[in-house]
């Protein structure tokens, strides 16, 4: 591997100090019943406990979520209080880029020397999303009401178009073939179930028991509820909602949380169960593509990133993305002439859902775990976000980190 100077050279992700909840589809689990900020805080504490990380080592907390939750005004300090730990921190959001951007911000926090151990905690509950009431004097109705998840999916105020229309437009622009997109989606499902059956997901996902207000068991979050095995025939038979977009080739709303730590190099060695593994930040890029072409934005971000670092797709040991539409991967494949079968080996959001805030954090955790099991190397993470934005980042896992 050639020598590349990493961004945030002083920051590391300690291997194995991470975890994610499963992402049950919206309205299908006990997560529909909880304050997701509180749940995420308590779940992070639990996950860190399971990973043998005393929560007291945490100096700062960056939370990321996109859907308003009760008491979100109090941001990270409140979520930290749910871990019985009083630390400062803040909330950030960038639609579906949140889960990666929060990690990058944490690295900047560590690299700047402000804090040695920064927690990243991303979460969202799409179930029963809040409805905002906005006084809009210039609107003919004077007052606008907005259901946070579905009204935003359905209408980009900058372009006037829905998300699904972006997928159709991008598919037409890149001349995607419905048959190939169906095949791709089918392959993604196979990848997910293979990873699940192999036990890989058990290394990153943590079953969590949810209590009701009386302290009694309300439900166990131990599966990506709602994910079902699809057949290629079934996918092909689905009605097209827009070009190359069907119920099977787009993701679904879900609920969940994901967390990891970003620390100094020394702290990473102290906290990781395998201190010999070193995970560095190499580079990050973002682009905004033309109106309503969001699914091509990630490929453009990766282009920018590779151009800046001098790395190529051949250098990547793991490639993984947030792909709310299967056309995202089809377009990426065309742009880079890259076999989409080589991506998303352990599953992806197309299959396991789209809780927005934590999506890319789970993608990242799975990718790093996979890279370790492959003996290390460069890890490429990317995805799209509302506003026709693409985000991409490269991390490097030290060689010799093969799963013991």
């Amino acid at each position, binding site marked *: 591997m050639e020598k590349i100077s990493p961004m945030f050279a002083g920051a590391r992700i300690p291997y194995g100090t991470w975890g994610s909840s499963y992402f049950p589809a919206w309205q299908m689990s006990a997560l529909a019943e909880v304050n997701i900020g509180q749940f995420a805080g*308590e779940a992070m504490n639990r996950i860190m406990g399971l990973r043998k990380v005393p929560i007291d080592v945490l100096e700062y907390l960056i939370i990321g979520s996109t859907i308003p939750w009760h008491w979100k005004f109090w941001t990270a300090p409140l979520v930290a209080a749910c871990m019985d730990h009083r630390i400062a921190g803040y909330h950030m959001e960038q639609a579906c880029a949140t889960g990666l951007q929060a990690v990058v911000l944490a690295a900047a926090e560590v690299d700047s020397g402000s804090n040695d151990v920064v927690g990243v905690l991303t979460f969202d509950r799409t179930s029963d999303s809040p409805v905002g009431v906005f006084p809009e004097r210039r609107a003919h109705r004077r007052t606008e009401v907005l259901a946070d998840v579905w009204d935003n999916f359905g209408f980009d105020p900058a372009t006037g178009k829905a998300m699904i229309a972006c997928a159709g437009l991008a598919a037409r622009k890149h001349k995607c073939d419905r048959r190939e997109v169906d095949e791709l989606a089918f392959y993604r499902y196979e990848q997910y179930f293979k990873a699940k059956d192999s036990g890989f997901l058990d290394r990153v996902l943590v079953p969590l028991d949810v209590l009701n207000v009386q302290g009694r068991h309300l439900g166990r979050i131990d599966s990506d509820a709602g994910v079902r095995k699809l057949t290629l025939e079934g996918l092909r038979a689905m009605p097209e909602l827009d070009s190359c977009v069907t119920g099977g080739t787009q993701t679904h709303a879900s609920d969940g949380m994901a967390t990891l730590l970003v620390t100094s190099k020394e702290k990473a060695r102290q906290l990781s169960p395998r201190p010999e593994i070193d995970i560095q930040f190499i580079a990050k890029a973002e682009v905004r593509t033309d109106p309503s072409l969001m699914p091509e934005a990630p490929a453009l971000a990766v282009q920018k990133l590779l151009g800046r670092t001098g790395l190529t797709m051949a250098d990547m040991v793991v490639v993984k993305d947030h792909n709310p539409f299967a056309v995202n991967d089809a377009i990426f494949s065309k742009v880079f002439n890259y076999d989409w079968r080589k991506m998303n080996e352990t599953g992806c959001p197309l299959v396991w859902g789209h809780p927005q805030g934590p999506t890319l954090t789970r993608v990242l955790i799975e990718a790093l775990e996979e890279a370790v099991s492959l003996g290390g190397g460069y890890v490429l993470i990317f995805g799209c976000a509302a506003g026709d934005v693409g985000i991409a980042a490269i991390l490097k896992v030290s060689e010799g980190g093969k799963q013991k």
Partner: protein
Amino acid sequence: MRFLRQPTTETLGLGPVHEFFKRGQLPTDAGDLVNRIFGQPGKRGAVVISGANGIVGAGKTMQLGSRLLEFNVPIAALDFPSAPDGIGAQYQGLKASFGQKRADEIMANVIRLNYDGQHLPSELNGLRPRFLLEAIPEILDVKKAHYEVFRKAFPEIEIRSVTSGFPAAELGVGIAHPAFPHQINKVWEIVETEVSPITQLFWALGLIPIPVSDNWSFVLDVLFCGLTLAGVRYHEASNMPFWKIDKFVRRLMGPNPFRAHDAIGAKGANFLTWSCLHHLSKNYSAPVFRPAPTLDHRKDTGQNWYPLNHFRPVVDWSMSDSGDDEFENWLIGPVAQMTSLMVHEERSHLAHMNAIGELCAQFRKGVIAFLRDLGPETTIKRVESYHRLHPEAAGSCWYPDAFGSMDSPEWQQLYVNAEHDGKVGVITIGRESYNSDVDAEMNRAIDWLRAEKVERVIVTGDFHLSTQLVGADTSEFYPALTEADRGYAISSSWSRTARRLNDEFKVSVGFINGKRCLGGMLELLMHCHYLIAIDEAALGMPEVTLPVVPGMEGCHWPFRKSRSEDWPRLLELLLTGRPVGAREAVGWLVDFAGPMQESLQTAWKVVADEKKGPLPQRKMSDKALKGIPADIGLPDSGNPAIRATRKAIMDCIQSSCGVSLAEALEVQAKHSAGFMGSEFCRGGVIGSECTKVMNV
């Protein structure tokens, strides 16, 4: 006189319980002691409680006020004018306990006085203070200055501090450290060079003074604060929230240390816990006591341990088998180490050390009984495992040899003692509820008396640690809810123990000296040839309300000893759960009821008289009984569980009375065990408690 181990009443200067019976009177009298301490009627001095509006001060103002009212001892409640009214807040509780009239009288006897901390109010002179109970903040210099002010004004005054941490040697006064909740908890840890009339007065008023040695922090606080610290350390090692640690601690030992802090008031309780541990760690140079950073923080902030109501926990925590083991090392290890120190220093009678945990800190079994169950080897291994997790704790205050005498009577007879004079023995029960420990100790006490050739025995409460006998410890029944064999084993073995009182002595007398004798304890004592109770005692079989079927032969034994015309009364006792007064029960359940002195004298005459005693012995039928009414016309309760339990109890009565005495034990045990597995028992008080405590 010979004792199985030292009677706890001796530690109060009261002599052995055997002497109470032999002399036919209690060793001391509240009226006499009041006269000695506060002066003759008409010239009575007052109790002064300083810091009377605080949690401790207000609680003790109520407790002492209600007990001293009949002796016309005024209570002067002293505090700063700015102190929030803590006494007025007690009124509703007082009313609920005593009724409005009595509550008004108690309150009317409390004279509230303000002072500035340096000058005593002139009104105090007229009250002739004879006893100061100091309950002011835990600041050594402030306390000492406070005593000086009083000594200057009233040189003869007796002073006791309620301090939870400072030794008497530092304060220069004796200590009477009470336990929470202060209105009702009768236990006081007492530090004084010799037993004083004040301490004996506490005993005579029905309180439970427990002498302990003079150390930085007394037994209760070492146990309670030590357990809290152990929980905090586990939190720091595992991230487990305090509410969940509480649940695991409760399952393991009984207490909820963190809930208790919040219930007492986190601000004050956090400080007291920290202060206790801080002084211990400093004075012993012992890291095992050193407050953990989390505790430092809670002390500084006064923050609650449980989340606020609107943040009731959402994510549950479970424990793997290996986690369970580590948890037990973190919890049992330091508690056992701290206990080794207390045993090594002989801080109190072991029965006292044990009882303090049960009566004041919610231990299901006192710490001594708990460690006795583990045995010396496992206890020491637990401490060593804890030291691997917290190596610096190993360097001091660790006395493994303290567990080397677990086979001695001092360790083996924590709840039951025996005394005899060569002719008459007395077995004392120092635990309010009957459990397997009491059962085993009862058997050992009987064995000892038999080996000592004693054929006459009185079985009684211990006149100290058990102020009543409330029945079986229902936590013992948890396994029986799912395993009928366990229920049968408990019922049959406990019944066999009870029968020994009937079978193995020439004369046995059950003596009920407290205000209640219920359920299993009543069943135990009714096995004696005679049953004697003080007038004020209430006797009852409340099993139907739990619901369970009585398991220690209560469904046939009393029928065999009573006339058929009294059977409806026994049925009513068993089927309604309503208690009866001792006097009402004479002739069909008890043989004599009277004032304490007369009861003591009667019991002695019955047990000691070689010829015909003063009471006729009710005859015991060992044949199958006929004619037990199948119905006594009780109105239907409307509650399916009670209806089913009444039927089960009635079935048990009919079946066990319908066979010979020899067969009845097994019949009753089977009925009792069978019902414990029923949906009604599992859905009742015991089942709910079991779910709450064990399924965490």
